[in-house]
């Protein structure tokens, strides 16, 4: 019998999966090492980082205040380019906000257990990205005090908002997405806040965590409903996350502008959002792991590699979508559409333009930056040793971050700067206010993330414990009662 078991064990070892949490860590290790991040004295690097990001955030807020008090004229927008960096930045940030909910919802439904190591930080990142995104449509309307017109209340002359407008759908989609993401994130946080409550030494912290842990005590009669609630929130968030960027894409797709009026937009936007979101998750978690080395056992090379694979997949889908847009422009035989794609985007001054005898497109550099960053750079991940190399992954992710910004710039500005009537053509250049508002949102995003790292558990401890081998009631030795004696 003993020999037989040994053979089975060695067979099992041959096909054994790499554990999600490495170095054979126990539940107690997880609690200690994740809670310490919150409990320890604020590290010097944190203050240094915060002293850089917070002033940038404040200057961004100053730019917003300046724009609101002076008017949208302080931006470089013009006729016909009424949407430029503002909407580019909105779509950029809201796209980044897709990875968190994808990880927490879709990967939960598809039982990708590796999500537990990264879901909390990604969800937080999602919320902060949506906060940054929400700024732009709010301030670009110009008269910010009129924003309440978007709310479904009859205003002074009894007219309601136009519910048939994609812009109003967007208001509902983004605000629902933010609200549901907060609810999902907080539900996941409750058991971990209870952990911090039970470990808290100071009265202030104890009070704070007691309030926010809601009296959670890990009873199975509670876990039963909790697990159902988590499943339902994941089920609700899955179509929601797909709908948000689809609705954002409707803002463009339902218009008649060549370059916007494309049926491929919803899936193309969703793939791009997941692509850009995962790149930002890695951009944040790779340095976080350097600063807190204990995270190397939780966010392992396996996690980085899996995210790199998702980036490769979604990047290739995005590349396919770019190609398909051109195919449809050509095959659809609409001269305006063809003109927009060839002469506003593709034609560069060196190779394609001269070859086709067309003038170079004014924003050709934006288009080709987008292709380089989004389509070519992630192809490096086909090679296993490269997608397992943290430095290469980090560099590629930053290419993707830049590329996804260029994608939205290309879609928005190249399409409207030169549309049907040549007499109305106008190029667009951003003003310093626009540039600094955008940089300011990075300050806001990073400051919020630093605060999150400092005050809340950045790894979902109770969820990570579920994927430890000891969590399985059929894993531990059947004679566990003896173990009880030894344990204490």
């Amino acid at each position, binding site marked *: 019998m003993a020999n037989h078991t040994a053979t089975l064990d060695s067979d099992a070892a041959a096909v054994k999966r790499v554990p999600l949490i490495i170095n054979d860590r126990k*539940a107690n290790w997880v609690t200690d090492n994740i809670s310490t991040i919150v409990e320890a004295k604020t590290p010097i690097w944190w203050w240094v980082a915060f002293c850089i990001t917070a002033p940038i955030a404040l200057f961004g807020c100053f730019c917003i205040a300046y724009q609101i008090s002076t008017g949208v004229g302080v931006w470089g927008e013009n006729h016909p380019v009424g949407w430029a960096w503002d909407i580019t930045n909105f779509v950029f940030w809201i796209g980044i906000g897709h990875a968190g909910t994808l990880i927490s919802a879709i990967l939960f439904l598809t039982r990708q257990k590796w999500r537990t190591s990264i879901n909390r930080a990604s969800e937080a990142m999602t919320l902060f990205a949506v906060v940054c995104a929400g700024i732009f449509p709010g301030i670009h309307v110009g008269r910010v005090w009129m924003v309440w017109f978007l709310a479904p209340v009859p205003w002074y002359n009894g007219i309601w908002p136009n*519910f048939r407008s994609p812009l109003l759908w967007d208001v509902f989609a983004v605000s629902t997405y933010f609200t549901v993401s907060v609810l999902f994130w*907080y539900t996941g946080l409750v058991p971990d806040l209870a952990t911090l409550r039970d470990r808290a030494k100071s009265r202030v912290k104890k009070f704070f965590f007691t309030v926010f842990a*809601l009296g959670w005590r890990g*009873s199975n009669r509670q876990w039963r409903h*909790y697990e159902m609630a988590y499943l339902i929130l994941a089920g609700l968030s899955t179509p929601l996350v797909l709908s948000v960027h689809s609705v954002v894409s409707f803002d463009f797709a339902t218009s008649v502008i060549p370059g916007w009026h494309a049926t491929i937009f919803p899936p193309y936007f969703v793939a791009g959002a997941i692509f850009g979101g995962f790149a930002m998750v890695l951009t944040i978690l790779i340095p976080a792991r350097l600063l807190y080395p204990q995270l190397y056992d939780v966010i392992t090379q396996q996690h980085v590699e899996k995210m790199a694979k998702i980036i490769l997949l979604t990047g290739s889908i995005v590349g396919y979508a770019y190609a398909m847009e051109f195919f449809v422009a050509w095959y659809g035989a609409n001269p305006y559409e063809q003109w927009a794609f060839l002469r506003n985007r593709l034609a560069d001054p060196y190779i394609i333009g001269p070859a086709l005898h067309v003038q170079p497109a004014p924003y050709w550099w934006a288009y080709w930056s987008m292709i380089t960053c989004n389509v070519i750079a992630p192809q490096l991940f086909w090679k296993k040793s490269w997608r397992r190399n943290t430095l290469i992954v980090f560099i590629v992710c930053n290419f993707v971050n830049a590329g996804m910004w260029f994608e939205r710039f290309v879609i928005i500005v190249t399409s409207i700067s030169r549309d049907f009537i040549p007499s109305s053509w106008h190029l667009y250049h951003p003003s310093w206010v626009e540039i600094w508002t955008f940089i300011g949102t990075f300050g806001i995003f990073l400051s919020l993330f630093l605060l999150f790292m400092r005050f809340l558990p950045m790894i979902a401890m*109770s969820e990570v414990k579920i994927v430890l081998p000891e969590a*399985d009631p059929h894993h*531990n030795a059947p004679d566990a009662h003896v173990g009880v004696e030894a344990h204490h």
Partner: protein
Amino acid sequence: MERSRKVYGLAAEFANATALYNAAEKVRDAGFRKWDVHTPFPVHGMDKAMGLGKSWLSAVVLCGGTLGLLTAVVLECYPSLFDYPVVVHGKPTTFMTVPAFMPIFFELTVLFSAFSTVFALLIMNQLPRWNHPMFNWERFAKVTDDGFFLVIEARDPKFSETKTRELLEQIGGQHVTLVHD
């Protein structure tokens, strides 16, 4: 405290999820009704070991989602079709335009469902609450770390301070302790 404190129940600690799982099966089979286990994470299969059925939280969410859908239908259709149809870009305002209302139907359905999920979770778990008798036991602080606990409440008809203690010790419970309110 001056007055004699009421007994909440007898609690025991277990070594790991397996020990607690096996113990829960035995407590269930012994016929207790008012008892619970406390774990740092949901233990797979524990509902069955405790003899609990499927959570009916989903039924509440179904009601909430339906309410959200109806809200969206009324919110969009009443003003846009009946109260004050606004002609935008010369486009029609008839029933043919209902497909344009679908995205908000969907969004409000999800929004109401999510809120009903969270509120149902709080109500069904009787949370938030400031304190609980179990928190009076200092070992219980481990429950959010790596402690596995089982408690049989005094209000269970089969509860007896001596016999229940014997049962808990017999099924592998450690540090069996009388927890007071």
